């Protein structure tokens, strides 16, 4: 057999892997490495002052403590609401469960800044729940995090609970176990892994949350993430920021380790083979109806107040969209800027995601290195990544003021989610399916077109929607690198909110409404399952 061709193919694979790895190293490892170097390296020697400063400085200790505390409370409350809701939607399945499930997942795709502004409208002194006086308190941060992360719990635990194999429970029942013992003996062990995984992911999101805390927290509620932002942009204390980055990175890695471990454990649980076997039950209890209405109200109410605020004074906010703001740009420019960034970010994330997924699923030479490199962005917060861009990407040439850096940052933030969607699909394509195509005369490029891309087209569509939604809502990294003359929508909202004046605030709400609509349309498009054409020719 001709070994020259196989050598050429292998060489081509190595080149693709190397180029992809080089891009990830330059845009992820290099910036993070520089952040670490900034903190731990001075005058040619290691120094631990920034690290010890995190522990010894009272303010830092309070910030770290507050970050962990609010993340823990947010996680526990998210689970307390999310798990019963998941049970209702996935096991009891009352009438309308599908609609409620779709609605509950909406906040997951919403930008954190929008969630922040929604709660600002809701709990502000002039808002409907202003009397509660929780604006700029820890409570509002926790409530906003819960609003955002209930969707995460439903999304992670839901599929496992839906396909949970009932047969062991049946076996336990016929062996004499009552409801409680049956639940303890079968359901809890089966779901423990996935619940811990969901808790770890929620904790991670809450710990590194930037938009919610920045918009709602006020000056007294500072987390590690907002403190890193303050130190680097206002005080220019890069070494102190590096210490916090390292502390946060350690906490993130520990959480990710727990998440990974629990996910593996959950994967070992046997699931039902076919969903149609499910025993469907309709709502019979009043509690089901109450929970469904509560869930709908929980998701929709804050958003309606964003719309209401934007429409106040005869739609003042919307009328201001085309006018130039005090910052020198008009809000409509930020919409255009966000659209442009989202298109580029989606393209970059998809190209990287597909290449990495194909390389990993086909076990190309050296592809294993791409796995950890591509999930690294989820391990560092967006603010850290943006900070890393700021201090590292001036070498070998200074690219920090290039607009292209924004979509690259967005793509890198989206990459782990894109990969999580694409990789299982590419890994699920049996080797024999590709071989069948080859045997039937398909060249390697046609195998990719007719098998890999054709099988994964829905996953690619979903990934594109997620990447676009993430790009539209990305706030942390963009805060560092966005060009001030043309901000993206979340940056525009934050800037508008930072200035006093009713019209400026109304404009911020109007931009938020535009952002909500765009994100909902993008996510909605991903949900539309294109009907396959069944003719001979495609």
């Amino acid at each position, binding site marked *: *057999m001709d070994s020259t061709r196989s050598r050429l193919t292998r060489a081509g694979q190595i080149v693709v892997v190397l180029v992809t790895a080089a891009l990830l190293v330059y845009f992820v490892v290099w910036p993070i490495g520089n952040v670490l170097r900034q903190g731990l390296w001075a005058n040619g020697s290691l120094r631990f002052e920034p690290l010890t400063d995190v522990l010894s400085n009272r303010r830092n200790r309070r910030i770290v403590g507050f970050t962990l505390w609010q993340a823990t409370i947010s996680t526990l409350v998210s689970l307390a609401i999310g798990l019963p809701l998941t049970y209702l939607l996935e096991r009891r399945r009352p009438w309308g469960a599908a609609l409620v499930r779709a609605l509950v997942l909406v906040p997951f795709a919403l930008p954190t800044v929008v969630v922040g502004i929604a709660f600002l409208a809701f709990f502000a002194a002039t808002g409907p729940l202003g009397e509660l006086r929780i604006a700029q308190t820890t409570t509002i941060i926790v409530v906003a995090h819960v609003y955002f992360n209930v969707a995460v719990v439903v999304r992670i635990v839901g599929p496992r609970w839906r396909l949970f194999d009932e047969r062991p429970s049946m076996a336990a029942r016929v062996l004499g176990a009552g409801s409680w013992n049956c639940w303890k003996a079968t359901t809890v062990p089966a779901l423990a892994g996935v619940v811990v995984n969901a808790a770890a992911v929620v904790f991670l999101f809450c710990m590194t949350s930037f938009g919610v805390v920045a918009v709602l927290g006020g000056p007294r509620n500072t987390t590690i993430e907002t403190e890193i932002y303050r130190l680097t942009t206002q005080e220019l204390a890069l070494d102190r920021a590096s210490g916090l980055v390292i502390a946060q990175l350690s906490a993130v890695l520990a959480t990710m380790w727990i998440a990974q471990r629990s996910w593996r454990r959950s994967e070992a649980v046997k699931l039902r083979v076919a969903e149609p076997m499910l025993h469907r039950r309709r709502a019979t209890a009043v509690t089901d109806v109450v929970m469904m209405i509560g869930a709908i109200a929980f998701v929709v109410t804050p958003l309606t107040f964003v719309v209401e605020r934007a429409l106040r004074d005869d739609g003042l906010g919307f009328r201001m969209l085309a006018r130039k703001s005090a910052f020198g740009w008009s809000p409509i420019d930020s919409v255009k800027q966000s659209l442009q960034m989202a298109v580029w970010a989606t393209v970059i994330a998809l190209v990287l995601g597909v290449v990495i997924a194909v390389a990993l699923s086909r076990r190309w030479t050296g592809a294993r290195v791409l796995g950890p490199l591509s999930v690294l962005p989820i391990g560092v917060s967006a603010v850290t990544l943006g900070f890393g861009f700021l201090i590292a990407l001036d070498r070998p040439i200074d690219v920090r003021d290039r607009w292209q850096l924004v979509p690259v940052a967005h793509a890198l933030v989206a990459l782990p989610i894109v990969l999580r969607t694409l990789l299982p699909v590419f890994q699920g394509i049996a080797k024999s*399916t590709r071989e069948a195509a*080859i045997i039937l005369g398909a060249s390697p490029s046609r195998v990719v077109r007719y098998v890999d891309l054709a099988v994964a087209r829905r996953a690619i569509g979903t990934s594109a929607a997620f990447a676009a939604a993430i790009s539209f809502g990305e706030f942390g990294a963009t805060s560092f690198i966005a060009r001030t003359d043309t901000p993206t929508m979340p940056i525009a909202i934050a800037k508008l909110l930072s200035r006093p004046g009713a019209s400026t605030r109304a404009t911020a709400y109007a931009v938020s409404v535009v952002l909500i609509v765009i994100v909902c349309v993008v996510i909605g498009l991903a949900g539309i399952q294109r009907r396959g054409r069944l003719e001979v020719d495609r």
Partner: protein
Amino acid sequence: MTLTVRNLNVVYGSRVVVADVDLEVSRGEIVAVLGASGSGKSSLLRAICGLIPYDGSVSWGSCSLDSTAAHNRQIGLMFQDHALFEHMSVADNVGFGLKMRGVSRRDRVAQVMRWLGLVGLAGFESRRISSLSGGEQQRVALARSMAPAPRALLLDEPFGALDPTLRARLAAELRDLVHHHSIAAILVTHDHSEAFMIADRIAVLIGGRIAQLGSPIEVWSRPESTAVCEALGFGTAIRATAHEGVIDCGWMTVAAPEHLEHVRDRCVDVVFRPDAFSIDAQGLCTAIVRSIAPYRDRSQAAIQVGGGPMVYVDSAPNLRVGDVVRIAVNPESVLCYWGGSM
């Protein structure tokens, strides 16, 4: 035209999976490669297709295929799991190979209809693969493999997942199709009944090497080694002694076959065909009935001769467990091979 495989070797790391295989398959001929799991059957087929690297040569007539990429060899392969494209309709699956060869849409539609008709799936064009039964999927896979008119067709345990009735019917249909279209076909299987049902010649593959190649009658009546006997399902070889016309198994003696009549004190391996034993009042050996179980329309008794292994015979109506019976051995069903030295 002939598909010729010469001195073919496949090596995974340091493990030789296929060793020195020589095989020739003519148009309209089906060669069954019979072997146990892990004997290198699937690797042999993948090498012939060009899906995995190999040493040796594969040629079609006088044309070497060694430097031809798998997608240009025009050799069809029907996979064990069918490897159908789940994301395509039945028609798209069947027409895929034609599309890759640049056949126009109109001709493709006609060919797809023709092949679906031939495999009994007319009207299934727009069905999804997931909506088909195992037998229907197998037919789609067959139509897909045959539609591009391959030079040769390789079949990797194509009936593995089917029930026995459907398997027999589809095997007969496949045999007719291959003969009718004069395609050179190699079928690999671990099921000897399937191999004997369909093949014109049978190659027994053991440890990656062809241990015996011949017509079904030759292979069945004259297996060349105890390993071939095992592959044919004859049971495990027993070590015995041949001495002056008698084979002494320790627990039983039988008359030696002709070629061992004059041997003295030689170690031999003895294999009994499934039909070697029968209950017979005139039999030479006594045996104890250990169990009786119904088998189809009759009963089958497991009997033990002396300290020897359990053998199975058709039971008599009045037989009971614990009975001592006399059994006869059919010398034609006793196969002897030279064993190690005593």
